[in-house]
């Protein structure tokens, strides 16, 4: 039953993203751009959400977005490789890097993992900054060719929306599959999981690699859509934001990061008056959420229901 209603929700969301939005906003490049941004950020956040599910706070997604972006940029500008080939390559390379660094760093937990992933974002940015002529250093890579078939705002939007839908389906299937249950078990007790025969190192690496591959895809799409990439295109702040979208939307459900990314990106575009307060509001919002809604925005209905229940109940339950 729950699965059925989730399917309906997904179908509705897909219909809105792929049919209603294009019909309503076809000529409006600006809103399409905003939604493209939201969709790609949400996609990247879904990866971070997967690492949250194994109990790791991942502040490295900016690094992998940077890697994905540079793969597309270097292949596209120097070797004239089609975007449609370099996109999967970007995913593979980001995933390969994640596999390499993930093995040692995933032994760390809690704040240590958070600190080391935060450092990774810095490493990536500095590495591209000091990459010499290969990465073009601080001046970044500009004039990345637009991908074939993606010359208009609408087509870029559709591609991003499609990517997001694939991402949601992927994360959702992961969460619902036995592998997802293994992920959740790791979060609650790695030793216990190991004693039950679960190869802990392998599964947490799997989550991190999938997550980073998604970060790479998001960065690749962004690079193609903005047609440029710089070492500072993704900083620690971006990595933290990827994490915040998950957290503010809610870590319990796949919809969390999507809700978080769309809500925050769109709300701050709509309320341009408060744009200057955006970061301040993030801060206040986070603290308030931590105090009153520790399970994210998606838990608001439950919390409200619980409140109402408490208020209406003449005799307190049990």
């Amino acid at each position, binding site marked *: 039953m729950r699965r059925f209603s989730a399917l309906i929700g997904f179908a509705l969301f897909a219909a809105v993203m792929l049919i209603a939005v294009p019909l309503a906003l076809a000529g409006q490049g600006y809103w399409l751009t905003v939604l493209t941004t939201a969709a790609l950020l949400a996609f990247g956040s879904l990866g971070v959400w997967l690492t949250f599910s194994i109990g790791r706070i991942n502040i490295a997604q900016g690094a992998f977005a940077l890697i994905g972006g540079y793969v597309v940029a270097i292949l596209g500008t120097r070797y004239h490789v089609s975007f449609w080939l370099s996109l999967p390559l970007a995913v593979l390379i980001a995933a390969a890097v994640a596999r390499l660094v993930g093995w040692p760093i995933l032994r760390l937990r809690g704040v240590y993992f958070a600190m080391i992933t935060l450092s990774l974002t810095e490493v990536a940015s500095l590495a591209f900054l000091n990459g010499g002529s290969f990465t073009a250093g601080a001046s970044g890579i500009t004039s990345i060719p637009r991908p074939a078939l993606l010359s208009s705002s609408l087509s870029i939007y559709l591609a991003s929306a499609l990517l997001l839908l694939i991402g949601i389906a*992927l994360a959702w*299937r*992961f969460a*619902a*599959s*036995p*592998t997802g*249950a*293994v992920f*959740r*078990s790791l979060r*609650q*007790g790695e*030793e*216990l*999981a*190991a*004693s*039950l*025969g*679960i*190869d*802990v*190192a392998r599964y947490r690496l*799997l989550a991190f690699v999938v997550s980073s591959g998604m970060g790479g895809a998001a960065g690749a799409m962004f690079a193609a859509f903005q047609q440029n990439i710089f070492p500072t295109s993704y900083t620690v702040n971006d990595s933290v934001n990827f994490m915040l979208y998950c957290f503010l939307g809610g870590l319990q459900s796949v919809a969390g990061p999507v809700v978080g990314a769309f809500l925050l990106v769109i709300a701050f575009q709509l309320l341009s008056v408060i744009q200057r307060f955006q970061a301040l509001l993030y801060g206040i919002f986070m603290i308030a959420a931590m105090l009153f809604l520790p399970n994210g925005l998606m838990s608001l209905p439950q919390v409200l229901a619980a409140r109402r229940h408490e208020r209406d109940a003449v005799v307190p339950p049990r």
Partner: protein
Amino acid sequence: MSLLEIEGVSRRFGGLLAVNDVSFAVETGEILSVIGPNGAGKSTLFKLIAGFLKPSAGRILLDGKRIDGLRPHTIAARGLVRTFQETTVFREMTALENVVVAHHLRRRGSILAELLATPGVQNEQENFVANAKEILAHLGLSGFEDESARNLPHGHLRALGIAMTLAVRPRVILLDEPFAGMNSEETARAVQIVRGIRASGITVVLVEHDMGAVMRISDRIIVLNFGTLIASGSPAAIQQDETVIDAYLGRADETAAL
């Protein structure tokens, strides 16, 4: 050849020799208890056998094949599974989910098949669920399947922990203080459960403080003191053993003096 052989195993932490040249063997189908005063090295020994620690010296063999140095999940796959001293379960899952996850080693589907939810994978999951329900019922946990583990009473949590180990279908099970903190009624039930496990063909090794339960349940007992094996034998023989009595009494004196 014994099922499980511990040969001259030592483990050093800095200057402390927590386990010192311990050797013993476990035969198929027996219940063997490891006892000893606090800090005697029992828990360390368990961790060494289950692969959570690597021995500084010595060999551990399961079916005549070395398992020392292997990682815990590989040892579990070979058929040796431990429980934990604390009532460790996955607290944010339901009882049923806990036991279903424990079927991990029997999963056959690839990740791709799982993501696509192929009929094979679905079938397999249904089997796991059915089997998990059976195990839960067997351990007296029917009716708690959909209860979040975090809400289960203490005694049920330990049963759930054992249920999860059984789902792995081990040949040897290491129980770390299965009777700790139980009243006599609960202990009696737990003793029945452990006997049931043995009856189903699983060899049991347990660490325990509750002497009454140990004497009732064990086929054989080994005694550790300061990391060294000081005695082994039948419950009756151990109860008469001078060194064992000294070890326990010595400690008791120290405790009283404090």
